[in-house]
């Protein structure tokens, strides 16, 4: 019974910063598994063209595309959330307005960067 344990989440009033704290963990956890995908990608490349083609075809399905877009969103979101934490580590931005502003900014910023990334991808590379 030594470790302090947080009370159950349901007793809290919903707040954007609490939501972003949870989202930071979820996106981090998702990218934990995305690293396995990066590992499989490198492994497929080292195995040869046939293996890479299978990997490439699987990623080009709509589920593959969904996963890829999801990973980029998780990356952007987690990165902005991380920058928020670095600001806090420097003992800045602790007043309530700034906390709410940074939480909203990381949520909206992550979505906007993901859209910008994939729209420019389609503009430069085409849909297929």
């Amino acid at each position, binding site marked *: 019974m*030594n470790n302090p344990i947080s009370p159950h989440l349901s007793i809290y009033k919903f707040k954007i910063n609490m939501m972003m704290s949870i989202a930071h963990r979820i996106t981090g956890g998702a990218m934990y598994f995305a690293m396995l995908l990066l590992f499989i990608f490198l492994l497929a490349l080292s195995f040869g063209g046939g293996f890479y083609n299978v990997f490439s075809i699987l990623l080009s399905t709509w589920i593959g595309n969904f996963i890829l877009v999801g990973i980029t969103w998780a990356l952007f979101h987690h990165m902005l959330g991380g920058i928020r934490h670095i600001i806090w580590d420097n003992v800045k931005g602790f007043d309530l307005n700034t906390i709410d502003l940074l939480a909203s900014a990381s949520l909206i910023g992550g979505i906007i960067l993901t859209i910008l990334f994939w729209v420019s991808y389609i503009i430069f590379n085409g849909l297929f």
Partner: protein
Amino acid sequence: MNKGLNSWNHKHATRHFIVQRITAILNIPLSIFLLYLIFNLPTMTYNNIIDLFQKPLVTILTIFLILNFSFHMKLGMQTVIEDYVHDKKNFKIASLLNNLVASIVIIGSTYSIVVIFLMD
């Protein structure tokens, strides 16, 4: 819930904090490199991708990316395990699995990158 739970990590808490932050900051430029790869690789042929990964700068950046991401994700998952796994035995198993996954990703990816670099 046992006495002295997670005590092996208390000694390393400061190091955990510092390594977490250093890898976090380095992850920003490395993520931009990863996004560059995600942006360009889908339209490239297998041979072009191999040529790209045989450039020394790309090889070094990819190894550095794997190392930095893996250490950061290992530390992050360790914090999640410390927060949610309270049973001492499960805690040890989860921590061991976490280290195992990070080790496999690091060793396996680095091996693949070296194999790709040495390809004809």
